[in-house]
């Protein structure tokens, strides 16, 4: 109860800061739109490759963009803690009896809220552009939820990295180094039977691919419950592991003070 309360109070910090900066809110909303339009136009010809059977490219692309958006958005979560550390806010938080898990979980919840808003915009825009959601509203919700879970894992990783390194440059470098390779090593932009077999092998262990394949199955195709259920469980386990890592990072940070 206390843990949930404290978590929500930490989330509120982020929500209020976002609402006070309409400009930033605008940027977070326009970014996914640009992606959808840009990638949609850039890779339109993919459907003409022999062996592609995903229907229209917008149908194929939308779940990929939703997931890609979730990780790139969540990746920056740790920036808030770096600001807190540099400004002195972190020390004040850590000398209060707040549960350390809430400091991480609160920012993760906030990151997930942002992801839900952004992915909703993407899903609606794609729908306007002709995407056909065979899975209906329920299927789309599962897609957004899977993207949110993956985002939660990335937000925790970002927090842990931020607290351990305390350097903006490290976080920027890590996010840039991770997002594109993980996207390319998944079926986010390209159907798996059209990529080299080694990429297919690697993709099996790529959490981004878990979210993309399960999300695509739920929202765009006839839902494969086995696939969705297993990937959901894997992503949930990953999110928990990452949250534990981030929570423990605070103790390590304190030992270094």
């Amino acid at each position, binding site marked *: 109860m*206390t843990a949930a*309360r*404290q978590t929500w*109070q930490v989330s509120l*910090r982020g929500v*209020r*800061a976002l609402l*006070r900066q309409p400009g930033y809110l605008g940027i977070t909303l326009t970014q996914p739109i640009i992606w959808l339009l840009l990638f949609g136009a850039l890779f339109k010809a993919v459907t003409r490759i022999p062996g592609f059977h995903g229907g229209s490219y917008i149908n194929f692309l939308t779940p990929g963009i939703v997931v890609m958006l979730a990780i790139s958005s969540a990746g920056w979560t740790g920036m808030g803690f770096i600001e*807190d550390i540099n*400004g*002195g*806010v972190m*020390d*004040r*938080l*850590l*000398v*209060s*009896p*707040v549960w350390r898990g809430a400091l991480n979980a609160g920012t993760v919840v906030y990151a997930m809220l942002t992801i839900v808003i952004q992915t909703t915009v993407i899903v609606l825009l794609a729908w306007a552009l002709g995407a056909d959601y065979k899975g209906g509203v329920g299927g789309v919700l599962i897609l957004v939820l899977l993207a949110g879970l993956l985002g939660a894992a990335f937000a925790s990783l970002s927090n842990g990295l931020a607290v351990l390194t305390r350097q903006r440059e490290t976080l920027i470098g890590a996010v840039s180094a991770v997002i594109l390779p993980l996207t390319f090593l998944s079926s986010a932009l390209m159907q798996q039977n059209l990529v080299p077999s080694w990429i297919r092998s690697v993709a099996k262990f790529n959490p981004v691919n878990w979210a993309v394949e399960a999300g695509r199955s739920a929202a765009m195709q006839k839902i494969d419950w086995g696939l969705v259920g297993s990937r959901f469980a894997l992503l949930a386990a990953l999110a928990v592991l990452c949250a534990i890592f981030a929570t423990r990072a605070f103790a390590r940070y*304190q*030992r*270094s*003070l």
Partner: protein
Amino acid sequence: MALAIDAHELIKTYPPDVRALDGLSLAVRAGTIFGLLGPNGAGKSTTVRVLTTLTQPDSGSARVAGIDVLADPCAVRRAIGVVGQKHGADPEATGRENLVLQGEFHGIVGAQLRARVTQSLERFGLADAAERQAKTYSGGMQRRLDVAMGLLHRPQVLFLDEPTTGLDPEARAQMWREIERLAGEERMTILLTTHYLEEADRLASQLAIVDRGRIVVEGPPEQLKSDLRGDRIEVELADSKDAGARVALERVSDLTEVKLEGRTLRARARDGSAAIPAVLAALDAHGVKATSVTLARPSLDDVYLQHAGRSFHRADSEHEEVAA
């Protein structure tokens, strides 16, 4: 009397080879203001970090409000308030939101929290600025918000780490009055670190001088100063060539280091104010006319010089050279 802070032989080193605390021990009685005085880099802030559970010592032990900081840090956190050197308030949040968050973390909720936050904003003169973001506050207002946050949950022990650094003289005087009020009316135990001699002198009832991670001397400011060889007495003579004056003073018991330079006669006395009548009587008996007598109490700077072996300001600038 009960000890609010009791630390033994704290040692803390930072890589590669900086010994920030080198066997520091400290005992603070409940309900007093205890000053930790020292130049930058002496180990004051590290001491505060250890006592507030922000970090752990390599060895040694400490109890705050009767609770072991290593065994039960969470209970210590509930019992203490901390105002750090840097601003602890979230700059993007309003004054009120910052206070509410602090209260929530300490388990104060609902109507009780709302009432306490409003009361706190009024008491620290922030009621009009309550709905403004903390980043729009002046330096003095931010500091008051920091203190308000440190006090919201009514801690038993308050840590103030250089509370007036960077404040203008007016804001500093205001902070001093507030600190005195807390210790006086609310009987709160306060550990204050400062590198302002006058601040320590004015606020602390008990003082420890920290140098290179150790406490070099400890006691009430007045006692520390009177432990020096004594007060300085200066007598201004009417006639510069009055050789009898020096002879007269040398016969007064309790006076040492009697020197005559031009028309100024200098001497040290263990207790200056008690010695003055005897000085005047001796001068009178020898027919020496004095135009003025001044008594100078030794300063904390003298105390620091005596115990750390170098002047306070030199120690401060030495550290800056090392840091730079």
